[in-house]
């Protein structure tokens, strides 16, 4: 007891938490008791000074809060609650008394009696308006606990509780308290008998609507507008009793409110209406509709328009849900009917701007209830069809069809919305699928749409409508699909100039038909398209003919993704290819073959190959299972054509006529064609399963090394001789290696190269590149082959002999040795890049040894830049070593590489320890390496270093190489992504950037239009990422300088200049 008194005394003097802890420990250990504490507090509790009394009660409350629940028995609870109720009367002790009560009401020993007495004295003595927020929060917490734990007691108190609650909650403004208050109110509104106090409760909840609270910046409490709004909505839609009172409030807010208020109101109406019920909705329908209509016809913005439509849907659903299944569909009364008639009245002028919202409303009706949907269609569709046929309205057919097509789409979409769970077909039972709502009007609509197709002006909406119909399940029969295809084909046949506008839509429609049923497209459309591909190409200046062919090919490419159609495509196009590239000797005219003729044919063949490749790529992306079979049907024929041509052109028998033919056949030796053909081969081989790849690899290597060319090249042309391509001297035959490379690089890592010694083979191809290859095309192809094998097989085939030779000899002899010719050294660096890349992607231990060597060449005056650029090329994303080509790649390899080299590059760019010439060379090379590296890697990998890099990049902008400059600007553009004026990376460099970018955007100073465009793009971006107060001094200069850029000789540059200048005109301080 003495100890207790001592602790009380010290606490009153010092208010240290330690004393509270002591006391509660004592009580827990039963060395003292609550009674002792109260006794000990006696003199303080009755003291004259308010402050002392307050402290006394506070001490007790604190002790109470720190005690375990089981330390307070029923008796103490009783006594304490009476005690605290008494203290509520004293204005000096009310605050600590409330916090004591807060603890008390959570105790399991707190019974109904206590609850009632506590509440009663709170209702009488607590005046929330005189208390600060934190205390009011305590009040709400007490109420919250009571509602949670003693709900029945409160219910039994009836009106007394309701009135009391209202008096406590009335006028609350703090968001923290309101969140709790709204939660309490929701329970009360839902569970309590409130019918005698509806208006009072309505007043204390609806006075908060709409929520206009904006959290202050850096709000520590983290309560958002949305939190409050959602909590309030929970109250507003808690009881249908609110309905009659709420609707006028909603309507008023909708009329007078701002954009945000309107949105909130619309959403709230949508949430409340279903609760308020059909009867009320029906009674208020007219008023609601009038207000909603306004929001749809004169929307403040598109979001609100959408919300208003959604709310209208809910209104209609609420009204008609109850009698939705009555069956009498034709007779819809009330709002839906009136609204429908009103909208259809507006649709009498479908070309006017009001028609659009009217159509939107009708479309929205389609997704409400089935009977409304049916009714709407029965009103709107015949009206539109009739309007279309009306001769007075002939000029308005396009808008009529536009509305109609929107309708068809809405009807299609409503099908899935109205029946979310389609009736499952039972075993052995045929269930009739639900007929689409449009079915009764199908013929009329189809007729109108096909007529619409004929005129150019109404073609687009007609196509959209047909698209909607085709995509509606169970609507059209196969004959009707055929009918549509027939009509659409007529557009395809028409003049390409006229088609231009609608061609995409035409192809979309045909694709949609092919998805449902490919047959009509195959038998009707494809022959039409194939027939527009002539056997020989149009002349260079015959542009309309060329466009027609290209359009037909584009159409084929779009349509023939489907398996059946693709098969036809392959057969027809490979035949066409043979015809273009290898004509009969007898069919040639006696005139000499010109280069022009060869190029025209080559370009034509290239279009055909491109079409095949693009279609195939789409199929591979979709993972179509039928791609693999083209290893037998398509790939051999491609090899056949190209090998044949390459072999034939090298022959020479002195026969003049034969020579002419050979010249003509050289069409298929154009490297561009070989490259495209390679793409096709790669696409097919990459999808083959392992065993098929292994079999194919055997044939491939056999053909490449042993010369068994026939085994992979079955086809129309007779392959004349066996030839070992690696030993050949003819350029055309060397080009063929690209085709082999294309077939080898997508092989899986398990596929062994079928050669006696892989190390020696790689050695051989590497030397071939440096000594035999005559073009970048050949070299690149073989580097790809090399990299692919190295990447997949370096450990499996123990290729360390090869790599060690490279590291120990090749580097010094081929790259560093300045007596070697420059070109050869550059090629060697290229080879080095590919080898490093192959190892780097799989995070091989040797990789960094390879890349580190590159730094040694930085101070070489001749190849320093090449070596520096290689640093970036090594990690650049390429389309050779990819996952699709089964390359081995490890996660985050780029990140590791960047971590390894970036600091070294930065050091190099700043380093000034070496000799002067060396130093500047090294610095420049480092800058080049930096720009090349940054261009090649994802932003995330260098993000953290960016602030330090910016000064270096700015230096890079002054290097003379246009490619480097465009890389640097690209980097700035990438860095600007996600940058904001508040935390701009470039803020401190902004004026310099402006000057440099202006320089690079001026046609007089920067010849490359690409760089100018990029610089202008960056200038456009700057105002949005740098604060106005930093850049405003530059504004006049920029606007003046850009006046020159808008006069750029190139149209694309002018476009960017205009956009950039507009952005600067709009650049203002926030006022």
């Amino acid at each position, binding site marked *: 007891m003495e100890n207790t008194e001592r602790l009380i005394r010290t606490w009153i003097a010092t208010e240290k938490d330690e004393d509270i802890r002591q006391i509660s420990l004592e009580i827990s250990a039963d060395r003292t008791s609550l009674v002792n504490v109260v006794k000990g507090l006696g003199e303080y509790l009755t003291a004259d000074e308010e402050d002392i009394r307050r402290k006394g009660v506070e001490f007790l409350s604190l002790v109470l809060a720190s005690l375990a629940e089981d330390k307070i028995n029923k008796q103490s609870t009783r006594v304490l609650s009476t005690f605290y109720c008494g203290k509520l009367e004293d204005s000096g002790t009310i605050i600590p008394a409330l916090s004591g009560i807060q603890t008390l009401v959570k105790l399991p020993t707190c019974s109904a009696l206590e609850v009632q007495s506590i509440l009663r004295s709170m209702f009488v003595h607590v005046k929330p308006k005189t208390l600060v927020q934190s205390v009011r929060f305590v009040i709400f917490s007490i109420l919250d606990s009571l509602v949670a734990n003693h709900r029945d007691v409160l219910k039994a108190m009836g009106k007394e509780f309701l009135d009391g609650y209202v008096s406590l909650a009335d006028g609350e403004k703090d968001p923290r308290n309101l969140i709790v208050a709204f939660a309490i109110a929701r329970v009360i509104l839902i569970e309590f008998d409130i019918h005698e106090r509806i208006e009072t409760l309505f007043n204390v909840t609806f006075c908060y609507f709409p929520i206009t609270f904006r959290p202050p910046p850096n709000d520590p409490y983290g309560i958002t507008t949305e939190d409050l709004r959602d909590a309030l909505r929970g109250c507003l839609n808690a009881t249908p009793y609110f309905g009659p009172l709420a609707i006028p409030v909603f309507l008023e807010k909708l009329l007078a409110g701002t954009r945000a208020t309107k949105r909130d109101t619309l959403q709230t109406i949508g949430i409340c209406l279903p609760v308020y019920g059909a009867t009320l909705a029906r009674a208020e329908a007219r008023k609601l509709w009038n207000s909603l209509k306004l929001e749809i016809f004169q*929307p403040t913005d598109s979001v609100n328009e959408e919300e208003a439509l959604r709310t209208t849907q809910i209104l209609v659903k609420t009204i008609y849900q109850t009698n939705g299944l009555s069956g009498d569909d034709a007779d819809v009364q009330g709002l839906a009917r009136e609204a429908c008639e009103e909208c259809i009245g507006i649709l009498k*002028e479908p*070309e*006017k*701007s*009001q*028609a*659009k919202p009217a159509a939107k409303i009708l479309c929205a009706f389609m997704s409400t209830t089935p009977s409304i949907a049916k009714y709407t269609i029965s009103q709107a569709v015949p009206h539109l069809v009739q309007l279309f046929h009306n001769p007075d309205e002939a000029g308005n057919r*396009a*808008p009529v069809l*536009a509305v109609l097509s929107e309708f068809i789409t809405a009807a299609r979409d409503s099908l899935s919305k109205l029946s979310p769970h389609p009736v499952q077909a039972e075993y052995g039972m045929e269930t009739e699928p639900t007929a689409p709502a449009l079915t009764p009007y199908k013929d009329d609509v189809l007729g109108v749409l096909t007529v619409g197709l004929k005129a150019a*002006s109404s073609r*687009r909406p007609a196509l959209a409508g047909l698209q909607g119909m085709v995509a509606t399940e169970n609507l059209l029969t196969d004959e009707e699909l055929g009918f549509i295809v027939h009509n659409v084909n007529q557009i395809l046949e028409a003049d*390409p*100039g006229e088609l*231009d*506008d609608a*061609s995409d839509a035409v192809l979309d429609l045909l694709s949609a038909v092919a998805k449902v049923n490919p047959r009509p497209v195959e038998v009707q459309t494809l022959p039409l398209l194939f027939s527009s591909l002539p056997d020989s190409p149009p002349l*260079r200046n015959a*542009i309309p003919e*060329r*466009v027609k062919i*290209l*359009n037909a090919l584009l159409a084929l490419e779009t349509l023939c993704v489907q398996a059946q159609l693709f098969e036809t495509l392959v057969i027809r196009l490979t035949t066409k290819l043979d015809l273009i590239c290898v004509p009969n000797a007898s069919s040639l005219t006696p005139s000499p073959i010109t280069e022009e003729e060869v*190029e*025209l044919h080559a*370009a034509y063949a*290239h*279009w055909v190959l*491109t079409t095949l490749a693009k279609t195939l790529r789409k199929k591979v992306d979709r993972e179509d299972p039928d791609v693999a079979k083209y290893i037998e049907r398509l790939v051999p024929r491609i090899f056949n054509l190209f090998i044949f041509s390459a072999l034939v052109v090298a022959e020479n028998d002195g026969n003049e006529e034969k020579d002419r033919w050979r010249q003509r056949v050289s069409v298929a030796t154009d490297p*561009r064609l070989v490259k*495209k053909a390679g793409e096709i081969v790669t696409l097919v081989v990459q999808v083959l399963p392992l065993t098929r790849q292994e079999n194919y690899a055997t044939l491939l290597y056999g053909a490449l090394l042993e010369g068994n060319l026939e085994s992979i090249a079955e086809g129309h042309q007779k392959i004349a001789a066996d030839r070992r391509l690696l030993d050949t001297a003819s350029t055309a035959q060397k080009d063929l290696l690209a085709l082999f490379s294309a077939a080898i690089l997508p092989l899986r890592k398990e596929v062994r190269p079928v050669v006696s010694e892989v190390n020696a083979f790689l050695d051989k191809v590497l030397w071939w590149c440096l000594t035999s290859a005559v073009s970048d095309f050949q070299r690149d192809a073989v580097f790809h082959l090399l990299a692919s094998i190295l990447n997949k097989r370096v450990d499996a085939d123990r290729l360390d002999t090869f790599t060690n030779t490279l590291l120990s000899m090749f580097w010094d002899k081929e790259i560093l040795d300045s007596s070697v010719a420059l070109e050869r050294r550059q090629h060697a660096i290229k080879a080095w890049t590919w080898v490093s890349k192959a190892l780097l992607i799989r995070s091989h231990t040797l990789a960094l040894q390879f890349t580190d060597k590159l730094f040694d060449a930085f101070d070489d005056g001749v190849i320093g830049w090449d070596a520096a650029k290689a640093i970036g090329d090594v990690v650049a994303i390429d389309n050779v070593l990819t996952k699709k080509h089964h390359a081995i790649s490890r996660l985050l390899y780029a990140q590791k590489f960047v971590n390894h080299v970036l600091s070294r590059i930065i050091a190099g760019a700043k380093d000034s320890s070496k000799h002067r010439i060396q130093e500047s060379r090294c610095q420049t090379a480092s800058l080049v390496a930096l720009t090349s590296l940054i261009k090649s890697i994802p932003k995330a990998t260098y993000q953290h270093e960016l602030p330090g890099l910016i000064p270096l990049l700015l230096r890079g902008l002054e290097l003379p190489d246009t490619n480097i400059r465009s890389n640097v600007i690209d980097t700035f553009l990438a860095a600007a992504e996600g940058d904001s004026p508040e935390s701009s990376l470039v803020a401190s460099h902004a004026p310099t950037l402006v000057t440099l970018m202006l320089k690079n955007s001026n046609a007089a100073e920067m*010849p*490359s*239009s*690409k760089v100018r465009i990029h610089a202008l793009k960056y200038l456009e971006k700057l105002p949005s990422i740098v604060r106005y107060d930093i850049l405003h001094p530059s504004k006049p200069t920029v606007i003046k300088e850009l*006046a*020159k850029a*808008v*006069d750029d*000789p*190139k*149209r*694309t540059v*002018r*476009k960017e200049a*205009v*956009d950039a*200048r*507009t952005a600067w*005109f*709009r650049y203002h301080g926030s006022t």
Partner: protein
Amino acid sequence: MPAEVFNPNPVVFSPTKGLGRKSELLAQSLWIDEPTSSDGEVDDVELIDQDEVFDLIRSIYDPEHPNTLEELRVVSAPQIKIEQNWVTVEFTPTVPHCGMSTLIGLCIRVRLLRSLPNRFKVDIFVKPGSHQSEHAVNKQLNDKERVAAALENPVLLDTVEQCLRDAGRRGLPII
């Protein structure tokens, strides 16, 4: 928004001309999908033409409606003429009593002022016979002083900026 709405329900047209010049692009080079050696670095000058000027103004919004001038056929490519350094833009108000005509003209002028090189002289007229106070509107629009004075008015300038907010779309749909 002004209190009086001059044309509450104007006719809306679909875009007058195609967006891309696709066939032109297709036809430009013999080879597709292949980088050509010249790759845009050639020195041939592409002059500013009718279509380019139209692209600049087609997506200006009508002050009264959420539609663009192109959709309301207030402006069209054939109504634009270019002779060396002289651009003439003619526009058609949707109704003859349209009180917004000067504002529309002002928007066009501001857009062209900002987007065309300084060497151009720009004249803006309403289509002859399409407006009841044609002469007054034309005079106002082509008077330098009055245009400058109008742009000093912050409220007016703000309205113009609003109409120009998506002018950079050049006929393309909003993304």
